């Protein structure tokens, strides 16, 4: 999975540079986040602007990151969801779990 990772003010932003987040590639995101947690980084912003499709494995990877971040007193937030990706969070009621922002600026300010 192609991920673009950058850091500012102790917040790590992960841009998922894939059209699809599914059972084929979501494991990569999960592992990448685990590595960041190991490095003591626990404030993550996942930028989904390029993602057009997410399945239950993709959601699962995000839930994993969310739980790990919270357990470390950090947080995982999401931004830039395309409308159909947003619907997936509603379908699974995960929009009540995640903080979701329209833009990365708004998300970064909220940490």
């Amino acid at each position, binding site marked *: 999975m192609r991920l673009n990772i950058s850091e500012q003010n102790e917040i790590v932003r992960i841009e998922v540079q894939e059209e699809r987040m*599914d*059972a084929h590639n979501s494991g990569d995101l999960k592992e990448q986040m685990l590595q960041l947690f190991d490095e003591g980084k626990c404030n993550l912003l996942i930028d989904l602007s390029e993602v057009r499709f997410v399945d239950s494995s993709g959601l699962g990877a995000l839930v994993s990151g969310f739980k790990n971040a919270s357990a470390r007193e950090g947080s995982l937030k999401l931004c830039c969801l395309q409308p159909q990706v947003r619907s997936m969070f509603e379908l699974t009621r995960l929009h009540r779990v995640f903080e979701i922002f329209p833009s990365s600026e708004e998300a970064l300010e909220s940490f």
Partner: protein
Amino acid sequence: MSEQIDVDITVPNQTKYLGMIGKIGESLAHTLGHYQGDREELAYHLNLVLTEALANAICHANAGDPTKEVRVSISASDEDLIIRVFDQGHGFDIQQLAKLKVKETDESGRGIPIIFKLMDQVKYLREGSVNILEMTKHLH
């Protein structure tokens, strides 16, 4: 005029084919003659149920063995769209599963619930040594 479309696909038991098969579901949604609803939504939903059902066949039934293969068929008539995903694994009790509630913080277990939510009828049948997850969507 009546419309009958049949697509039958067999690929190696590898998740890298999920995207291709999901896309076939999407193009089908865009091409269906009689559908009155939101086509973009139908396209996403077919992509999604195909992805969920195939990922289960690949990862659970075939235990991720990349030398096996996995088969799916899609049939659309004027009334219904039926997706069948075939596996030769041990099978599972889908009714039991349908009763379980996924917790917000569960990392897995959302595939079958999604399929139940998006499709109008879902069955898991055994025919000889083959299991078939049969998912029907009424088109009007």
